[in-house]
């Protein structure tokens, strides 16, 4: 079983790495780049939502702010793309510590946590929208620069494919290590019964904050990559719809495993491209998927398949 898993994993990695050799279609590769980046976003959200049990609505803000912060630090501090990304991720981490401290010190839970993080996210969006001199308001910003890596300019779709794939792999590795460590066990304790965790000596506040900051940090890195791949930035990055899209990806994929949200991200990113939908029909499809997933398979695709396999294994 163990060996089989490892073999499957290895085969998948080789297939994904070799994919651009066989697939020359720019459209397919572009869809995959977006899928990997959305996957990172979904996996990092799930660290806070699926593993620690906190329904954060701040994720779109972390994602969007990082794009702007990278651009601004490159423009005003004269740093390169990667330094800019690190600075942006640190800035977002500081914001997350502030927001998280406010929410968790006051013990906001469930719906109240969602509402207050949503409020902070909206404040961030309206600031970006209205601070014209810095963010160029509704019009957004065109990003001409592309990142350099080991002497190569990450410019064409194939190099972006590899960059995003590696970024996703690192995210999965980091999250998986975190979740399966003692810290991940603290996250589970908080999600399942925080009062009991408290009496067992777990500092609930500290580990809620740790999950929140770690998730937002990864979201920030994703936001910076996403903006520079897309080549533009606009306040819509921070919108409620963006947060809800992330929730939909995680629910569809499944929230019980580190990898599962990627499945949801790939499906929901690829779907609108495979069939040509108008914006309205896409919204209808998204909404229906959200409703059906919750009512029909609340564990998501991954969870449902895993449960099926377990049942077959047992019988």
């Amino acid at each position, binding site marked *: 079983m163990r060996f089989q898993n490892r073999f499957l994993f290895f085969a998948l990695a080789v297939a994904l790495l070799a994919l651009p050799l066989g697939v020359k279609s720019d459209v397919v590769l572009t869809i995959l780049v977006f899928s990997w980046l959305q996957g990172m976003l979904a996996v990092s959200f799930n660290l806070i939502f699926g593993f620690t049990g906190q329904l954060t609505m701040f994720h779109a803000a972390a994602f969007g702010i990082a794009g702007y912060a990278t651009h601004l630090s490159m423009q005003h501090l004269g740093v390169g793309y990667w330094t800019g990304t690190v600075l942006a991720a640190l800035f977002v981490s500081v914001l997350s510590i502030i927001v998280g401290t406010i929410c968790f010190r006051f013990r906001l839970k469930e719906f109240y946590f969602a509402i207050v993080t949503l409020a902070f996210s909206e404040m961030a969006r309206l600031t970006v929208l209205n601070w014209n001199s810095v963010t160029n308001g509704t019009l957004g910003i065109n990003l001409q620069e592309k990142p350099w890596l080991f002497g190569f300019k990450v410019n064409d779709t194939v190099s972006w494919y590899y960059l995003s794939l590696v970024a996703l792999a690192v995210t999965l590795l980091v999250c998986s290590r975190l979740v*399966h460590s*003692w810290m991940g066990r603290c996250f*589970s*304790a908080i999600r399942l019964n925080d009062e009991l965790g*408290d009496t*067992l000596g777990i500092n609930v506040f500290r580990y809620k904050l740790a999950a929140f900051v770690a998730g937002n940090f990864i979201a920030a890195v994703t936001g910076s990559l996403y903006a520079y791949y897309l080549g533009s930035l606009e306040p819509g990055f921070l919108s409620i719809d963006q947060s809800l899209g992330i929730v939909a990806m995680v629910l569809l994929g499944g929230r019980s495993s580190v990898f599962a949200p990627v499945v949801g991200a790939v499906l929901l990113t690829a779907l609108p491209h495979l069939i040509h939908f108008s914006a309205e029909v896409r919204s209808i499809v998204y909404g229906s998927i959200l409703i059906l997933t919750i009512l029909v398979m609340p564990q998501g695709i991954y969870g449902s398949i895993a449960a099926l396999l377990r049942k077959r294994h047992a019988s």
Partner: protein
Amino acid sequence: MLLEVRKLTKRFGGLTAVADVSFGISKGEIVGIFGPNGSGKTTLLNLVAGLMPPTEGGVLWKSVPIQGLPAHEVAASGLVKTFQNPQLFAELTVLEHLHIAAHLELKRRLGWRRLATLVRPDLAQAGHERAAQIVRICRLEASRDRLAAEISYGEEKMLGVAMALMCEPELLLLDEPASGLGAGEIENLEAVLRDLKAQGTTLCIIDHKVGFLGRLADRAIGLHHGAKIAEGAPDEVLRNPDVVMAYLGHSRDRI
């Protein structure tokens, strides 16, 4: 003196739940606190565990006041409490409960170096060995890999004790560990608690089951209407006329 309770009083509005109670617990002993239902036992235990502030008086844990500390800090200082109604993580197995409860052990052993286990998971191994050991001590081997939602009530209560033990307590406060258990399960519990005493763990047990406490405790404290009415060797306390009155008087009222 490990724990010192000084003139502890707790009032809820007009109701005095605990009235001017003082006692001490020394290292290595088993202290039983008993009294009829509604005599303020659970309130006293919550006060002692620092979970609620007293109206008057105080509790010194290793000569330091613990009132107002968050629960996780109290646990970290070596004073651990179990719940009367077992509190569990429904989705996890028995062994996974113990791995979560290994948190304090890891924190004490590695301090901030425990972040290194994120890169080298083998450093956390000691906690897993301890978990396996405590599964044995608590006679939970048979249900080690079963989900908390599937085990019996007796096993749930025992799992509560097992998690508390994982925290390496210097003083373990047990809130009615025998309530709701069958005769066989009580025997099992007694054996486990005797093992713990043999290993030098200090215990403070609260129960209204007089027989169970009488067999186990080194010293007994009788509680009635929130006040201490007797203290001493268990069989002496059980013969104390005030204690007899408290129990019999109560049962006569009920009829």
